[in-house]
């Protein structure tokens, strides 16, 4: 267990380091003068010089990289060209919105995805399975930003059921907050539920034909108990991994969803920063996303090895 953890942690650190190097080189691969890009188009020569000095662009590349790492380790992600405020503070206001959106979406996705997946597996060959499979196929094929668009058009503007855009902090009014975020969360969540449903279904089908399920059935356990305590529990191992891998989809989806519903989160920050050529923000956004991805997948692996002892054993020889 300890060795497996150590090797996974080492791998994650290595990946993280490579990501930092990539982002560092990416900013330097910008067309033209990176100092001009970092300072904004109409900056004075003295401002350019200051930026060059601040980012160490007037020094050799290894020295620049060292300075860059130093800044990162101090948690300093730079200053936005556009607003002049620190990128750290911009992230601090944007991230909670995205956390709430993605957490709620993940909850909805799990409820729908695992629920329909189990139903489809238990009622194999029945109409229920056909409906569930059809739902998943359509869920995989429908562009979710389009569903969001239609939801705004018909549910918000048309029927007036939900606010079409904007956000209220959970701290100022929890109810208003929910009213603003539930529609985007449902749209994002149903999008993710299709993949979860498919994985749950195939894992459950495998589990239901396994010997231990037959044994549980034979010893007279109620069917409901066999499904929830035996089959589903073992299927969830697969589902947890898939949920971890889906994180990229979740982040990408959140960016689009926030853009459509004008939620002031991480995704909106990302898109705005690209159009305003706000390079310090772009750099921070890319770095934060990649780091989150690596850390969460490491945690998923941990969880995986806690649930499934076989992983720990397999980890020894790889």
């Amino acid at each position, binding site marked *: 267990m300890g060795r497996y953890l150590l090797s996974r942690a080492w791998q994650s650190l290595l990946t993280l380091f490579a990501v930092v190097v990539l982002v560092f080189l990416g900013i330097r691969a910008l067309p033209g003068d990176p100092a001009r890009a970092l300072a904004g188009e109409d900056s004075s020569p003295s401002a350019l010089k200051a930026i060059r000095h601040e980012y160490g662009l007037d020094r050799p590349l290894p020295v620049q990289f060292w300075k860059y790492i130093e800044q990162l380790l101090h948690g300093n992600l730079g200053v936005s060209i556009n607003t002049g405020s620190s990128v750290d503070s911009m992230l601090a206001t944007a991230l909670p919105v995205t956390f709430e959106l993605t957490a709620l979406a993940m909850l909805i996705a799990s409820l729908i995805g695992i629920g329909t997946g189990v139903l489809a597996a238990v009622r194999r060959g029945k109409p229920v399975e056909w409906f569930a499979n059809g739902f998943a196929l359509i869920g995989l094929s429908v562009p979710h930003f389009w569903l969001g668009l239609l939801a705004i058009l018909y549910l918000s503007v048309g029927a007036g059921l939900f606010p079409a855009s904007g956000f209220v902090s959970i701290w100022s009014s929890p109810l208003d907050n929910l009213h603003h975020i539930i529609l985007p969360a449902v749209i994002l969540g149903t999008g993710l539920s299709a993949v979860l449903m498919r994985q749950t279904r195939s894992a459950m089908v495998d589990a239901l034909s396994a010997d231990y399920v037959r044994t549980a059935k034979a010893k007279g356990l109620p069917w409901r108990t066999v499904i929830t305590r035996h089959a589903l529990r073992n299927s969830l191992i697969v589902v947890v991994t898939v949920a971890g891998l889906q994180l990229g989809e979740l982040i990408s989806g959140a960016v689009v969803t926030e*853009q459509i519903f004008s939620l002031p989160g991480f995704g909106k920050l990302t898109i705005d920063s690209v159009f305003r050529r706000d390079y310090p923000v772009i750099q921070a956004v890319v770095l934060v996303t990649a780091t989150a991805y690596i850390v969460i997948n490491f945690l998923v692996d941990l969880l995986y090895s806690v649930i499934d002892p076989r992983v720990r054993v397999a980890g020894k020889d790889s």
Partner: protein
Amino acid sequence: MTTAIPVAAATTLRTRGRRARIIRRLGRNPLALISITVLLIAVLVAVSANWVAPDSASATDLAHTFSPPGTAGHLLGTDDLGRDILSRIMFGVRASLEVAFLAVLTSLVIGVPLGLIAGYYRGADSVISRIADVLLSFPFLILAVGLAAIRGASLSNAAVAIGIAQIPGVLRLVRSDTLRLKSLDYVAAALVDGASDRWVLLRHILPNATSVILVQATVALPAAILGEAVLSFLGLGIQPPQPSLGTMLSAAQEFAARAPWAAVFPGVAIMLLALAFNIFGDSLRDALDPKGSR
């Protein structure tokens, strides 16, 4: 000397028989037939959009803005500039397919060789798998954001971003299939017979991994189509006035309350395209499955 010919003939016979069985299985599946028909129509429309489309994609007609669907000459209506929506969808489908094929091709050209090498040589595996991990930690949208920031937003950059994001998936799949195939007896036999690594990889492992690669490609195509739509919708992909289903939807956002059809039809087109690919992919996987009963 003479034994070489019957062996080769038997192999082609066997592959021909296998191919025929797969086609027979697909032909017996009505959903597969429907999806193939939809895809053929889409490809046909994309290739011949210049001649089939009732209107040019960019011809504006300010006297006939927001014509509802069914208006004479505009089956699906017109948008805010009086442009024919059906024609724009046809050209948009072309752009979608272009990006999707480019993206999947990119991911296969890079992912398949890397996967083969990683699965075959243990030494290379750790390096290549680490690279895949790094790629995997950039969600495709973030990758596209970075690429758009560095190289600007365009059709080809959108395709590259989607393609790069799909590399780890291809790589891992081909790697694990190579690992499996490498341990089989016939590979060992070929090696004992003095075959070079290159020969084994290209003649023995790659052909047997084809079905896995094929299925992966059919899963990747609809994902790429949705990816293009998202990127263009956000302004990170195809740039207006070049028609794309994503940019059409993003423009329709402004006037959706007045002309809902402009926001509905392009989305339906994306969905049909992705749905057809997904159903075809599912059917193909079933048909390729040697355990399948049909």
